[in-house]
């Protein structure tokens, strides 16, 4: 068996995804020989360029032994606690990373909240989330402090500076012993069995036991093996992304904005010293020139040329000796910022499931099953925003239809494996978008209404008092920089 072990891995793609994969593989499986063909990612590789990331990036760094001095201070990152959704529903709402409310007796918090909501007396759902209130107030404390105060859990993602972040990850990978090969990729040669025999770059052919395709949506390697692509454009209509940056940055903010607009939506993300904008739309509903003009008018941003995306995923991201990750495996719009998260999930799985050179179908099947399920549930979560945000969709993915039916009927969220977003994340969006279950959960009978209302009022008050005492985010971030210096 050991003699069949994979010895060498070639990562194609020198963006954040490629370098992150190489660093993680070398760090966790040091016996492997790792090389990266450092082709710069194309502009439509969203995981390699989006500023907003989910809390899973913090776990990814921790597993690699990277500290916040590296990933936040030296890489110029900021913190983010969530997104404010504007104009998606009657009122704005915050989807923050953390718990919403705490259990009241035998009934789930959200069911009690819902019961009170039917009496018309409840405060917004996000006022029971420490993370959401901190985000709105732009005050920060680490998750341990929130937990110590008994206010549930919070998680934070980062606003990365994509170029500095990529350089940080590249330097780390090189430090670990990853070899760098200059691009571009001029050819990909296949064996007679359809596996990859070698990749041409830097004037030579490079061969490896396993090829990781991180070349962005073109999937230069993976696309040579088959063309089984699952197209999501029937559910997710956006096919253009426009990026822009402001010349006069705003104050850094823990809360990003996602604003619904005709043809799609636009965002604002205020990192330390940089304010980023972007617009996501369907080219059938909005002309590129109009999208550019609108972004310019709404914001102080200078838009770049729009990039085209095609939402969907490979049915099997891993075939024979080639596994696609990042935009090469799955392409989704930036809504909810899942792009790099999905790449990290794939990298972690690759590390954990590293097979041998036989590429046993059962092992690849398990990888593809998990990776596919994770992507499909992210897709469902994104479609949810549109399906409940006014533009009633004509058809829904069956798994989302099931979730929505159960929720609309009685506030139940059926469990799915490989879910990225927790129950509270789903609730934040569902309640935020004014989806109200038809029935109140009978189990709330066990908690008298007045008692629940009292407990909920105290919960809100405790959060408000706690947050008011926290340092302002800009002060917190500044101090972090000074401490590390």
């Amino acid at each position, binding site marked *: 068996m050991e003699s069949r072990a994979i010895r060498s891995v070639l990562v194609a793609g020198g963006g954040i995804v490629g370098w992150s994969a190489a660093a993680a593989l070398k760090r966790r*499986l040091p016996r492997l020989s790792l090389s990266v063909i450092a082709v710069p990612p194309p502009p439509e590789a969203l995981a390699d360029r989006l500023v907003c990331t989910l809390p899973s990036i913090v776990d990814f760094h921790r597993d690699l032994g990277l500290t916040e001095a590296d990933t936040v201070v030296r890489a110029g990152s900021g913190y983010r606690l969530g997104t404010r959704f504007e104009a998606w529903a009657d009122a704005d709402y915050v989807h923050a990373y953390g718990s919403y409310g705490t259990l009241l007796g035998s009934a789930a918090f959200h069911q009690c909240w819902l019961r009170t909501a039917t009496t018309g007396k409840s405060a917004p759902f996000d006022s029971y989330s420490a993370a959401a209130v901190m985000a709105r107030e732009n005050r920060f404390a680490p998750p341990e402090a929130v937990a110590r105060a008994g206010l549930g859990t919070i998680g934070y993602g980062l606003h990365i500076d994509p170029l500095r972040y990529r350089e940080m990850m590249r330097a780390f990978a090189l430090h670990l012993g990853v070899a760098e090969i200059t691009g571009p990729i001029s050819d990909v040669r296949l064996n007679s069995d359809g596996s990859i025999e070698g990749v041409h770059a830097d004037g030579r052919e490079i061969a490896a036991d396993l090829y990781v395709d991180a070349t962005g949506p073109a999937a230069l390697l993976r696309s040579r093996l088959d063309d089984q692509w699952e197209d999501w454009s029937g559910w997710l209509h956006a096919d253009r992304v426009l990026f822009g940056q402001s010349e006069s940055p705003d104050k850094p903010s823990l809360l990003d904005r996602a604003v619904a607009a005709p043809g799609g939506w636009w965002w604002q993300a205020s990192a330390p010293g940089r304010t980023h904008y972007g617009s996501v739309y369907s080219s059938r509903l909005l002309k590129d020139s109009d999208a550019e003009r609108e972004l310019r008018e709404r914001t102080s941003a200078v838009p770049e040329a729009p990039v085209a995306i095609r939402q969907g995923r490979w049915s099997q991201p891993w075939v024979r000796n080639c596994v696609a990750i990042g935009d090469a495996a799955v392409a989704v719009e930036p809504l909810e910022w899942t792009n790099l998260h999905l790449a990290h999930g794939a990298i972690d799985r690759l590390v954990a499931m*590293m097979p041998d050179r036989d590429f*046993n179908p*059962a092992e690849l*099947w*398990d990888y593809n099953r998990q990776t596919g399920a994770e992507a499909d549930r992210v897709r469902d979560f994104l479609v949810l925003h549109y399906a409940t945000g006014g533009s009633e969709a004509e058809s829904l993915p069956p798994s989302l239809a099931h979730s929505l039916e159960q929720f609309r009927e009685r506030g139940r969220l059926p469990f799915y*494996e490989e879910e990225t977003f927790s129950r509270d994340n789903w609730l934040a969006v569902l309640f935020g978008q004014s989806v109200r279950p038809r029935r109140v959960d009978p*189990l709330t009978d066990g908690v008298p209404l007045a008692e629940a209302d009292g407990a909920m009022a105290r919960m809100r008050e405790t959060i408000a008092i706690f947050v008011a005492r926290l340092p302002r985010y800009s002060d917190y971030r500044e101090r972090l920089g000074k401490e590390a210096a």
Partner: protein
Amino acid sequence: MLAVPKTRVVVVGGGTAGWMTAAALGALLAERCTVDLVESQEIGIVGVGEATLPHIRGFNERLGIDEADFMAATKATFKLGIDFENWGRIGDRYIHPFGTFGRGQGQVDFHQYWLRLRQEGAAIRELEQYSMACMMARLGKFDLPSKNPDDIASTFNYAYQFDATLYAPYLRALAERLGCRRTEGRIVDVELNGESGDIEAVVLTDGKRISGDLFIDCSGFVSLLIGKALEEPFEDWSKWLPCDRAVAMPCRTKNALTPYTGVIAMNAGWRWRIPLQHRTGNGYVHASAFISEKDATAALVGAVEGEAIAEPRVLRFRAGRRTRSWVRNCVAVGLASGFLEPLESTSIYLIQAAITALVELFPEQPIADSDRDEFNRVIDLEYDRIRDFLILHYHATERSDSPFWDYVRTMEIPDSLAEKLELFRRRGRVVKYREGVFLEASWIAVYLGQRVIPLGHDLRADMPAPDALARGMETLHGEIRTVAERMPNHAAMLARYCPMAA
């Protein structure tokens, strides 16, 4: 909301399933429903599942049941797992523990480090030597788990072995306190609505008619409502699980009062040994295609440890389940919905799973399809996963000493199990579910205990140097041993904590 009239629930059958359901509805949904339970003293109860899974603790807790009081009343003992004998080969023995192997740390499962050292040829102990639950079981010790997650004594869980014929009356008292009405009588007719096909009422021998909105079929194997009246088909799984008989015979306890259930493979099935405070339960689950009832009875009588305290009694069954457990206005709970042999003590767990789903999906009138569909989806998942786990025990064997073992060793297995087996054989990977009754440690215990030995391991386990890793594992083993040795003996713990009334 409060103007809605209460749903009239009629529970048919007063065994474990019936009284668990009645008590749960009374405790959790008293505002929503009234509960009538019909049972007949003439019909014996099967008294399934003398051995249970840890989930039952959550059920009792939710009903506000005091553990020591319940254990004393049902003459219960503690259960840390199941001791399997003669399964992989005659002479083999392993424990399926309620707890982890090693200490849960990082993302790499403990057994991967163990596999790696073994594959490198290092001299290391058997896997169970690194499990708190296994160690306590082997030493005959018991204490309640620590609540501090850093404490090694927090790495196990436990269930009970109890007299199921005493659990139902215990719950009956609770259910009646909560307002459940009990009617004595045998059901002779089930009235269906001519238009909708829903059940309208059940009719007793004396002509009494009990009508309701929602009927819970807890009638056991006869499946009076969902099977007989509503004719929901039965999916037969006997090609994978050929055992269809059990002969049971309790005896006086002669050997030690073990904090675990014994499950001993026999020529045409397996034998249970369940020590209670006052007696030991024994039974031989067998396949009638491979052994006669007479021979099975003789084998059981020859094997029990102490003086018999009842005549051997034979039960007949068939592995499988109703295609749907909730049909129209009828929900089947327990044996009326399906049967899986008690090899992994899942009978009461399946009752509990159905009750939990029913409470979460408790319907309005008229009943929404979405409630029924979701209930059936959840129950299907439970049945399918337990089914695969049970089949594994038979299929993963090297035994070729009898036609029974030849059959199960070579039979075709469901694809879902074949995939799991192949993944484990490659590098010890367990298909992980966040939901489901048997988690990683259970699968690992059975795979390794029954000689499914992986060819490789998770490469992340290569990280620590071999000496350091071996030393760390030895320290862990020592800690587990020391902590277990300091615990009270199982019998002493019972005498102190929950002695049965004399």
